[in-house]
Structure formats: structure tokens, C-alpha cells
């Protein structure tokens, strides 16, 4: 057990280091501009006074490391500064929307993970059958579809007939059941986009193991194919499966941006797109940091879980 905690501790430190580097990149990106941010934002016709005022407001007169320090310590305490476009504190803008986006991502994960694992096991069980070939072609196809294409097909098919709403209006008063109902189409879109890849990788991970001697042994004992796969192959295939699940959940984080815009879902992605349009750099930095942190966290969890499921990885010589 001590090994596990030690390993988790080390991974956590590594994750924090990654996050630190990411925050430097996100903050430092503004330093790439040839001129300064104030001129870039206000355009060439801005007068010296307005430029000076904006520089003062953004704190651009301080040296970069000092500004970074203020930004980082603020961000850790949940204070991301003030949005330039709306003049509101960014924490207020982000707060409610973060919950909505998390809800959507979790919803999509809850639909897609069991679905893709079940389909992957089925494809491995009936490999080279019509089902397997069809699922392969479908997987390649759905990976190639842009999210908005899938989304609009679903709108045309399911929202046109009035089954589900094509726009999501969530207020704090919305009940959980209503939320599930209203967010069904966005969640289904995300599910369709990520399921194919997870399913293919699950199938590949299981099939890789099927040539092993212990699988042959289990077969020779007279076990049913389903039992062989579930009892002997899946536990050993867990590490790669967990990794690919984490990878796709991380993909969900960026996938929500487009899907939220299609369904007018009040989440972080929508806020980020608006902020990019208005060049509201402080908001974009804050959201980028949140998304990147979630990405790092997911990879960290996957790392730990896949190590825990494989005893051999824990006792390295």
C-alpha cells in the first residue's frame, strides 16, 4: 500500500509541475505580441491617454514576472480579475457556467463509457463478423464527422419532431430531471463523437490478449467465449482501456466548446468563444487555465488507475 501512496504523491507533484508550466505558457502567450496588448486591443487610432489608461487598468506597467505572480496567486484563490468586455469579475461569469459544463461532460461520460465498453467487448467477441466490420466502418466515419454535423443531424431528426428541445435554457431553478431532459441532445452528440474511438481501442486491447496462452487454457477448459473475455481478458486489458477512456474524456473538454455553441448551452465553451470574439484576453486565459487543469487532472487519474490495475507496474525492479 505504501508504494501506491508514494506513487500517487509523485504523480501529483508531476501534475502540479505540468500545471505550473501550462500557466506560464497561458500567461506568457500575451508577451509574444510585437507591440503591447493595449495598442493591439484599441487599434492604431487610439490616443496616448486612452492607451495609458488601459495599460494602467491591465497593470501592464509592472514587469511581466510580477504580473504573472499576481495573476497566479489570484487564480489559485478563485480570483481571475475583471473581464474587459463586461466589466464584471471573471469568477462570477465562470462560476455558474463551470457547473453547467461539468454537468454536460459528466452526462456524456455516463452515456458513452458504458456504451463503448459494451460495444467494444461485443466487437472483440464477434471479431471479423458483420457486426465487427460495420462497427469499424462506423467508427472511422464518426471520428471524421465534425461535431456540428452530428449535432445538426440530431436536431433535424430528434428536435424537429418535438421530442427534445434544440436549445438549452438552464436557470438555477431548473430541476435535475429537466436538466437531464434538456441536455440530452448535446450529451448525445458528444457521446456519438467519442464512443467510436473508445470502442475500437477496447476491442484492440482485448484482441491483443486473446492470443495469450492463459486465454487458450481457459478456452480449453471449456469456458464460454463471453466468460473468457469478461473474466480473463478484460481485467488484463484494463490499463489501456482506462487510458483511452481518459483520453476521450479529455477530448470531451474541448468538444464541449462547439457543441455548447450549437445548442446555445450556457457553459464555459460558449463563454470562451464570446471572449475570443471580443478579444477579452483575461477571460480567455482564465477558461484556458480551467480546461487545461481538467485535462491534466484526467490524465493524472488515468495514470494512477492504470498503474493500480496492473500489479506488475507497481513492483518495478
Amino acid at each position, binding site marked *: 500500500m505504501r508504494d501506491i501512496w508514494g506513487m500517487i504523491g509523485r504523480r501529483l507533484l508531476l501534475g502540479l509541475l*505540468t500545471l505550473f508550466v*501550462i500557466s506560464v505558457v497561458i500567461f506568457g502567450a500575451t508577451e509574444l505580441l510585437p507591440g503591447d496588448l493595449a495598442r493591439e486591443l484599441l487599434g492604431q487610432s487610439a490616443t496616448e491617454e486612452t492607451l495609458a489608461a488601459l495599460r494602467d487598468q491591465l497593470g501592464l506597467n509592472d514587469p511581466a514576472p510580477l504580473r504573472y505572480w499576481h495573476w497566479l496567486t489570484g487564480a489559485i484563490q478563485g480570483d481571475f480579475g475583471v473581464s474587459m468586455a463586461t466589466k464584471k469579475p471573471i469568477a462570477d461569469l465562470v462560476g455558474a457556467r463551470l457547473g453547467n459544463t461539468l454537468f454536460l461532460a459528466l452526462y456524456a461520460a455516463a452515456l458513452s463509457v458504458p456504451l463503448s465498453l459494451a460495444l467494444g467487448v461485443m466487437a472483440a467477441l464477434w471479431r471479423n463478423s458483420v457486426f465487427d466490420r460495420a462497427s469499424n466502418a462506423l467508427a472511422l466515419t464518426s471520428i471524421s464527422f*465534425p461535431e456540428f454535423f452530428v449535432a445538426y443531424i440530431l436536431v433535424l431528426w430528434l428536435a424537429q419532431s418535438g421530442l427534445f428541445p434544440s436549445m438549452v435554457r438552464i436557470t438555477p431553478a431548473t430541476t435535475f430531471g429537466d436538466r437531464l431532459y434538456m441536455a440530452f441532445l448535446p450529451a448525445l452528440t458528444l457521446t456519438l463523437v467519442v464512443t467510436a474511438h473508445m470502442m475500437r481501442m477496447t476491442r484492440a486491447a482485448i484482441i491483443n490478449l486473446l492470443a495469450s496462452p492463459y486465454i487458450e487454457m481457459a478456452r480449453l477448459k471449456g469456458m464460454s467465449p463471453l466468460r473468457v473475455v469478461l473474466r480473463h481478458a478484460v481485467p488484463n486489458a484494463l490499463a489501456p482501456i482506462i487510458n483511452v477512456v481518459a483520453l476521450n474524456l479529455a477530448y470531451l473538454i474541448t468538444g464541449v466548446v462547439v457543441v455548447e455553441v450549437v445548442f446555445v448551452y450556457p457553459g464555459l465553451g460558449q463563454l*470562451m468563444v464570446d471572449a475570443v470574439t471580443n478579444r477579452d484576453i483575461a477571460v480567455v486565459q482564465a477558461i484556458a487555465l480551467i*480546461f*487545461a487543469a481538467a485535462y491534466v487532472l484526467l490524465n493524472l487519474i488515468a495514470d494512477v488507475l492504470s498503474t493500480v490495475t496492473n500489479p506488475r507496474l507497481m513492483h518495478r525492479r
Partner: protein
Amino acid sequence: MTVLIALLVGLALFFATGLAARVALQAGAPAPLKPLFRDMPLTAAFGLAVILFYILVAILAPVLAPFSEHEVLGGQYLPWEAPHYLGTDKLGRDMLTRLIYGARNTVGIAFATTVLAFVVGSILGIWAAVTGGWIDQALSRFVDALMAIPALILSLLLLTIFGTSVLTLILVIAAVDATRVYRLARSVAQGIVVMDYIEAARLRGEGMWRLIRREILPNAMAPLVAEFGLRFCFVFLAISALSFLGLGIKPPTADWGSMVRENATLITFGDITPLLPAGAIALLTVAVNFVVDWQLHRASGLKE
């Protein structure tokens, strides 16, 4: 019911195109290439046919298009009737014309971006692998830091800073994707650099550029070509997504992503016109994926 019929028609078209393309390619190919096309799966034949079709449309756009790209021709959102066979868009421009020009603009920009990402990424990657030492370390750690941020998020951040125009779009996406190409090129080149013939070439006194061009690139070509196809798909989808979000290619340039965005309201009335540009994007990506899949399968020598 209509969904089922559409699905069946789609499948029939897919088989017909695939079979026709396979027969045509076998008949038309020069003798040394014939065995290559004989064992080609139907999906790959279909993919090749679609890619050729897109290239033709992109090149011949001014000849094929019935109207001009930016011309406002009449009422907005006209139905599918002659002379506007696919109706008109929000501003009354001919949909079919804009779809055809979109092949030129969207695919052209995506292709240019991919080439740029590839040239930068693979040269830097191979250079880092050949040089080694602190240059390799510095470049690789820098790329690692960039890759720790999801691609779309990083592109959005860079677009905020540099503003949204076609040129910045190309540069930003190319920069983001070059990091991925760099990773692959470096790892492929690292396997080659330790070979004896590289050592021999070095002792012979070959310079860095010649070493990369004559010794390493030819041997790293196969994985890089497959990666080019996959990378093109990612770039193409990224550019379409950004244009769809209103942050990429700007009107009045005909572009598939922004065409979906502009006409999306029609969907809620049950009109499928906005799905056409989205479908055009999807079809090309599927086609490229099919061909890449076939090439990867051939290169790995796998027989399932």
C-alpha cells in the same frame, strides 16, 4: 422511414463508387502500380474517388459554378428550384456556387496549413534528433509544454492574442499542429539516427542538411506520409470548427464551416440545406481516413 431510405441509398452509392473507382484505377494505372490497386479494399477505392472528385471541383470551381462567389442574386433562403438548384443563403447568394467555391477555399487553406505544419514540424523534429544535446532537450520540453494544453484551447488563446484573420488562422493552427508533427518526426528520426549508415555518412563528412535530406527523410517517409493524411483531417476539422464558431475564415469568402453557421437557423424549420456544407466536410474527412487506414494497414503488413 426516410432515414432508412437515405441510409440504403447512401450505402448503394458507396458500393457503386468504390467498385467503379477500383475498376477504373486498375485499368488506368501504369503497370508497376497495378498490384497495389488490385488488393485495394472497397473503402479505400471509395476514398480515393472522393478525394479526386474534391480536387477536380476545387481546380475547376470557376468553370463549374453557375454564378459568382459573392454575388447577391435575389431573395434570401430561396427553395431548391432552378436556377438555384440548392436554393440561396441568408444574403441571397447561390448555395451551389458557394459550395463549389468552398472546396477551393476551405480545402485549400487546410491543405496549405497542413503543409506548413509539416515542413516546420518535421524539419525541427529531425534536426533535434540529429543534433541531440541541449538543443533537442530545449525544443522537446518546449513542445511538451505546448502539448499539455488541449489543441483547440491553445488555438483559441492564440487567436485572442493575435486577432482573427485568415493569415493568423493558418499560422496558429500550423503552429499548434507542428508540435504534434515534431513529436512523431523526432521519434522516427531517433530510430534512424543510430543506424550504421548514418554514422558512415557522418564520417564521410556529409553536412546536416544533406544528412537530413538524403539519408533520414527517405527512410522516415512512410510514417510521415500516413501522418500527413491524419494531420490533414485534424487541421481540416479544426479550421472548420473555428470557422463555424465565427473565429476562422471570414465572410464573404465561401467557406463550409461558416456556411453552416450562417444558415443554421434553417435546420429548425426542417430544411437540410445547412447540412450540405457540413456533409461536404464530413465526406472528405471520411475519404482521407479510409485511404490512410488502408496505407497504414499495408505498411504494417497486417492481415487480420
